[in-house]
């Protein structure tokens, strides 16, 4: 897996040994989403539908903007109460490309604020949310 930060964009990639049809619901089904990120999710995977992810110390809230199973989806992402990263203030695009029987994922998080406190707070709180003992 790799990641790059360029300006206000983060790009992360991953290769998964399963086809896009299997991987895609992990971004739209709450029970599947929380197997890899967050503790609780409230999802309405249609354009304009709610995207809410409770990560313990922080809740990310946004809306699905594009839902094109099983190859592409876009949702907005923000932290309520954080005026440097408000809900809907940034977007996450996920593109699933078939690679034989596997999937190449490219995730692009756009619209991050410049290196400011809010952004960092969100970042470390996500991290801490994951690092907490079970």
């Amino acid at each position, binding site marked *: *897996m*790799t*990641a*790059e*930060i360029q300006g206000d964009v*983060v790009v*992360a*990639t*991953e*290769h*998964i*040994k*399963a086809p896009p049809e*299997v*991987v895609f619901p*992990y971004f739209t089904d709450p029970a*599947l989403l929380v*197997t*890899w*990120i967050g503790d609780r999710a409230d999802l309405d995977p249609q354009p304009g539908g709610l995207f809410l992810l409770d990560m313990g110390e922080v809740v990310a809230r946004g809306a699905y903007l594009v839902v094109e199973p099983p190859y592409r989806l876009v949702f907005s992402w923000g932290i309520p109460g954080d005026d440097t990263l408000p809900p809907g203030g940034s977007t996450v695009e996920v593109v699933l490309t078939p690679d034989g*029987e596997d999937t190449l*994922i490219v*995730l692009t*998080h756009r619209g991050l604020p410049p*290196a*400011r*406190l809010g*952004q*960092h*707070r*969100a*970042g*470390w709180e*996500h*991290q*801490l949310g*994951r690092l907490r003992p079970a």
Partner: protein
Amino acid sequence: MAGRTPTTPAAPDAVLRALADPHRRQILRLVQHTELPAGQIAASFSLTQQAVSQHIGVLKTAGLLSERREGTRRLYALRHESLEPVRELLSEFWPDALGRLKTAVETAHPRPARRP
């Protein structure tokens, strides 16, 4: 810049521990764009001045606050560059998450072993 505290970079862990308290984050927001004396910082909280001083001490130790003396006052400000290690951590957020996604998917959908 005379009178500023040393600007040794702190480890990400120290920065994260310092940030892991809502009062300390609030202090940083107060001095994000301006220098403030300790008394004015304390006036923004329902905490005792002593408690606020302790939080300021933690933030200073982590390298997140600069301190400048002006007469009898000590002025504090956010050192923006001290957040760079946390920015690097943020860059690991999605890769880490996708790594867990890979594990979750491949555990739930194991490929049958291929016969030679």
